[in-house]
């Protein structure tokens, strides 16, 4: 089962990435922001895998390894991000990102 045009994979990755950016830019819920970032990271992984397919040999392998690390780092980021949510929700009792806008000047 093959015959997938690698370019299409990249286009899909770009679209997903842009969707992630759109989520991050427009949504106000803190959790949705975090999910938007996850979506962007997933798009990046897809991009790596897609490129890995265009290449061969060792070059191809690097594209498989990198997503492994990205997944691990994304987990770490989610860990700190969730701790952050707990931390900030305690202070203001809201998940609305617009509520965190007291710092001025």
């Amino acid at each position, binding site marked *: 089962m093959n015959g997938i045009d690698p370019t299409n994979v*990249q286009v899909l990755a770009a679209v997903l990435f842009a969707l992630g950016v759109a989520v991050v830019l427009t949504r106000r819920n803190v959790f949705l922001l975090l999910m938007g970032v996850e979506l*962007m990271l997933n798009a990046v992984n897809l991009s790596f895998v897609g490129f890995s397919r265009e290449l061969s040999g060792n*070059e191809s392998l690097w594209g498989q390894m990198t997503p492994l690390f990205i997944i691990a*780092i994304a987990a770490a980021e989610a860990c700190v991000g969730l*701790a952050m949510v707990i931390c900030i929700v305690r202070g203001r009792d809201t998940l609305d990102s617009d509520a*965190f806008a007291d710092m001025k000047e």
Partner: protein
Amino acid sequence: MPPVDLFPLFLPLTLVIAGALIVLGFEPFLQRASKHRLLPWLAAILLVAAGAVQAGAPTGSLHGIFAMDTPRLWMCEAIIISTLIAIGGLQMSLARDDYPGGEAYSLSLFGAAGAMLMVMAVDTLALFVALELMSLSIYALVGMRRNRRESNEALFKYFVMGAVFSAIFLYGAALSYGATGSTAFGHPWRDEAHRGLFLFGQVLMLIGLLFKVGVVPFHFWTADAYTGAPVAVTGFMGAVVKVGGFAAIGTLWLNLAAVASGMPIPGVLDLGAAVTLNQTGKDLLAHYNLAFLVLGLLSLVLGNFSALKQTSIRRIIAFSSISHAGYMLLALALPIGEKLQLGSLWFYVVGYAIATAGALSAFTALAGKEDINDNLSGIAGQGRARPFYGLLLTIFLVSIAGVPPTVGFLGKYLIFQDLVVRGDVKIAIFAMIMAVVGAAYYFRTLVAVWAAPSCEPAKAGPPVLSGWVLAGAAVLTLVLIGWPNALIRPDPAGAANLGLSAPAAPAAEQAVLPTGLATAATR
């Protein structure tokens, strides 16, 4: 660059991480008060050891993902010193606040380890791991004061924006990988059809890194994150993130220049080396050059003028850090000749890091419990109440302002001279005028520090560690101006130094020619 063994290369880093682990291990078993008495000293001992070992670190590269050379060595050294300073400040601050926990020391060390790795990384994946290690630690440090509203807000903004730009960086890395077939820096695009892809990737990576160092228009996090963090942490992140970020930007830029000029670099590029540009490369990079100049000038203008308006010291430093990012960007501009060399950048970065960490650490002593004195009226007269820290703050601020006889002057001097000699006289004049504007707010701060006291003098924390460390750093700030070349260690290749000099042509060639790294060929 010759390959180097894992152990000697990573020994300083191992010591730093070991320090973090030891602090973590002791932390739960100590009384709250003794946490701040003992843990910083443990951390400091390990850091001093790391600094000592770092000075003798071998130069070379490891697996083609990490490398060490003289500029990198001194940037690592600067990170270690800044961390040491920050640990001193943190001790003062946390002990005064009676903060219930000593994890902050360990997080500082983790952050420092991340920044050191950033300096050493010559591979985008390694760079990303390092960047995240640094960032995650610093996010936590920024949000450390959890019941302070501004701290929460700073944490939130910094974290989300940081995560978004990490993803952008990573996407750039993916595109570059697709175009070159390797995640390492300095690989040429596979064929002409992939050139656009390659450049797109490089630009996205560059944007991710420019965000980290707070260049306009990616600077929005700076003011809030600097203000929300405890003062000592502000100094730490101001110093360490700049070093790590600009080391990465410089690595990317030098490699990009080499690749654009069609120079194959199977080895790993020495940051002190001169990259030879040809006309193709110059044409390709002309836009980038312009972008650096424009963004640099924008950062100078926005940073300096915004800082003029501020009353909070941390916010002043935040906006001033944006302007300093501007100076450093100007140092990246292309030369008029053929050799691209970033010596003035490395020197500037090292000097700036030590002075920033020092200034804010000294300010911690004057800032009072929970940093309540963090504005010009709160700090009024604190210098007269505590002249030792007042004097140290003066020295560091004078250095950041770029006035002799401090190291900050020589950094600015070299950048301006590069600009003038290169023919960008107008830009140099403009940057110098901005330096004068900058002097205005630094000296406004200093005037406040030494003015007649208007409120209670700040309560002293345990000053011993910070006192010694800061005094040492102040001496370094004053002495380094005389011996910028003291940062230079004879290099086996003979080419590298802090990059301040244009090494003789053959040496420069040597530095960029393949030096036989086995992995490089396979990647």
